[in-house]
């Protein structure tokens, strides 16, 4: 395992991009599709749940989630499930990323050809280690999201504020009932639960900062998409930027979009290998990066078969949230009862 410890800012940037990169993809479409003009309320509701979860979780422990699980069997099960779902989630995002690039800028290029730069970038960065993953996030995330903010602000001229009403959109049930399952959009919060052993900074501060910033961008981008009367699920943020005052900059969005995707994929790949290594007590996990990359690419190829349907996300959103939200709460609830004192008789710090 590596000696490098992420700084608080690096860890926060990493989490912000993991949570927000889906905004470039289908997430705004899902929220609007679910609740109509009530999408903003759904976002706020989902984030309120996420904040509440994280508030409870971080008040009970400051440790890595795996170190809280008492039994090796359950530890293995939770780790394996985390890796599996991260791979699927990463592959789904990978598939969408490449598919949109094809639509946006390179319609004549075959998908497999567009996969190469993403694959090379994620493998190189993940292989370079946690320091690289942290530093590139620390470098690119502020730039990416600042530029995005500017581009969105420049599209104000196309905003139609009546699109925000009715505020409850498709109704109370859609916003808060079915909207609850959109908590799965924040599935990558799972990575945050593994961060305490990788950073010396305050875990609680990282989590709240990342959630706050990502909430801001979720509200901003879904709001902007609503305001320009976004109807389709495809290329939501691209649609916002096309409406901006900066003409001919559509292609520049490709840079932001691809960079955000590469950041996301490199982090997912790194954490797949890291979690696997940590779960099964491996001395080193770097040799796993290439196999995991191949699995990720292969799975993304499967979802290419039906990119419009997005089978994985559509059908897993009902239970995907259980792993990062419900199970950790249960673990922290059970743990103090069963393991009040450690083996050496000292009180558990959590």
């Amino acid at each position, binding site marked *: 395992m590596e000696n490098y410890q992420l700084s608080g800012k690096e860890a926060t940037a990493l989490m912000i991009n993991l949570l927000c990169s889906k905004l470039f993809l289908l997430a705004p479409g899902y929220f609007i599709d679910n609740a109509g003009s009530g999408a903003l309320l759904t976002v706020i509701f989902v984030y309120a749940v996420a904040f509440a979860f994280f508030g409870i979780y971080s008040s009970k422990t400051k440790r890595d989630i795996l170190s809280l699980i008492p039994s090796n069997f359950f530890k293995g099960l939770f780790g394996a499930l985390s890796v599996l779902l991260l791979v699927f989630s990463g592959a789904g995002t990978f598939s969408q990323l490449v598919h949109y690039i094809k639509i946006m800028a390179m319609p004549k290029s075959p998908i497999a050809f567009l996969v190469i*730069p993403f694959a090379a970038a994620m493998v190189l960065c993940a292989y370079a280690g946690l320091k690289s993953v942290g*530093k*590139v996030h620390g470098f690119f995330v502020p730039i990416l999201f600042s530029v995005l903010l500017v581009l969105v602000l420049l599209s104000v001229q196309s905003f139609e504020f009546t699109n925000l009403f009715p505020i409850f959109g498709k109704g109370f049930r859609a916003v808060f009932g079915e909207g609850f399952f959109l908590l799965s959009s924040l599935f990558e919060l799972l990575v945050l639960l593994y961060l305490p052993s990788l950073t010396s900074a305050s875990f609680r501060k990282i989590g709240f900062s990342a959630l706050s910033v990502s909430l801001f961008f979720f509200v901003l981008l879904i709001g902007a998409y609503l305001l320009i009367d976004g109807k389709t699920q495809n290329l939501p943020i691209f649609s916002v930027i096309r409406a901006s005052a900066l003409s*001919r900059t559509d292609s520049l969005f*490709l840079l932001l979009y*691809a960079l955000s995707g590469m950041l996301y994929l490199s982090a997912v790949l790194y954490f797949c290998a890291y979690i696997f290594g940590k779960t099964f007590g491996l001395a080193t996990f770097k040799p796993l990066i290439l196999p995991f990359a191949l699995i990720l690419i292969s799975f993304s190829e499967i979802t290419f078969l039906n990119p419009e349907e997005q089978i994985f996300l559509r059908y897993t959103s009902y239970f995907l949230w259980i792993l990062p939200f419900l199970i950790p709460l249960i673990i922290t609830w059970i743990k103090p009862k069963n393991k009040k004192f450690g083996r050496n008789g000292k009180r558990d710090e959590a």
Partner: protein
Amino acid sequence: MKTTNLLKKIFLFSPNDGQNTYTFNTHTAPEKISIPDPNQKISTQYEENLKLVSEVYSLPENSDIKIREFLIGQHTRAFLLFVEGLVKDDSVNTNILGPLMLLPQSSSTYQALHDTLLLNSQISDTTSFRTVFDDVNMGNCVLFTDGLDTAFSIDVKGWERRGLDAPVTEQVIYGPHEGFNENFKVNTALIRKNIRNENLVCETICLGKESKTPCALLYIKNITNPDLIQEIKHRLDHIDADYIYEAGELEQFIEDSSFALSPQFLTTERPDTTASALIEGKIALILHGSPFALIAPVSFSDFLTTPEDKYVRFPFANLMKLIRLIGIVSSFLLSGLYIAIVNFHHEMIPADLLFAIEATREAVPFTALMELLLMEVSFDIIREASLRVPSPIGSTVGIIGGLIIGQAAVSANLVSPIAIIIVALTGIGSFATPNYALNFTFRFTRYLYIFLGAIWGFLGIAAGIFMHAAVLSMLNSLGVSLFTALANDNRDTVLSYLFQKPIWKRELRHSYVNAQKTKLQAKISRKWVEK
């Protein structure tokens, strides 16, 4: 002679017919020449010392090694050993030979020689031949006396050297116009001239088993972190090489990553830059024979900074830095972006301009990629050629390059004018890179970006930028990340590294140096503002 033999002699002529032709044998191991062990103690016997010195230095074949035999006080035999050309003849004659030979009552005891007869400020004594040979090779003169098992090493160095010139690679308008030369003693003296502080330590370490090149390790003992000093000493002490001659070679021996595309030590030929780095808490290495100092640890922003940035007022310094950054980014990215736009993203170009570009490219038989590569390679050849040719011809090469390659290539429809503009902007941008070593990095990566842009458009450029950043962020300079400024949890921010604060705001040393003293100046350094 038979006719056939005569014809053979004429038409099958070969010089010497294979006789007296020397072929160097590279297959069998050469015969080893035995050399006397130089790690012996000096003898009290005059003849023994003389014999050993003569054998070690291959006398009389070795013509520049001089042994001057004489009598001290007209009664005791002695000889001086020195290298012709490395010593000051006047000093040898006046301060050493004069008093010893001319005073008839001169005593040859150790005390007499050391205290009264050798008129030189720097004298050391030794009982080891190893030290004797090291000192003689460095330009000292060594005195052996009959009956004494101690030799005196007298510092009379006086070799020829280049005078102090303006730095070639780091010229400035404001600031000192004084650069290092190849003599490390002169260079260390230049730094001492800048830092008049008794805490400045200049340790000399000999590098290279055969070359024994002196290397000065400089640091300020009450500022620099002792761990850094220990680490650099560890690296220097563990170089097992016969020969190190230049700072560039030393850098490659002690850098963290040899395969990296970025330098990890800052090279400078300016004493003021070196002094400023030492004050900051960094260490500097000066190798004898090299006009460059190596500074570590550094962050990536140090490579983007010129000495002038500190000397001009901060708004102008920041404007210059911003323009320089644009130039640097365009030096490695512009060509790639151009090819990406031309090949994939036409919509970014206004229609009129697009038609104009297409019209100029219509007659060009090459693809945009070939056209750009042709120009980039030509530009690099011109640059390389103008560096190697004597300076009076250098400008001619530039003119020929500019006129022939540029104008004529366009007239011959080999390249389009837009490609010339792009390559020219890229070239000018690369000259804005303050660090020569970093310039190589960007020259190299520019070709990678061209290929990535040509193959995948902006997607390729994004992948290139991402991978470039990932690779750079792996690198360390003496254990400190080159991207240390990025997203760290300490007081420094990226902006504080990239841009200059007003002089009164530069209160603290950079945190990555982790110096013993964090404060560089008082919170209120301009005390006069307080009334």
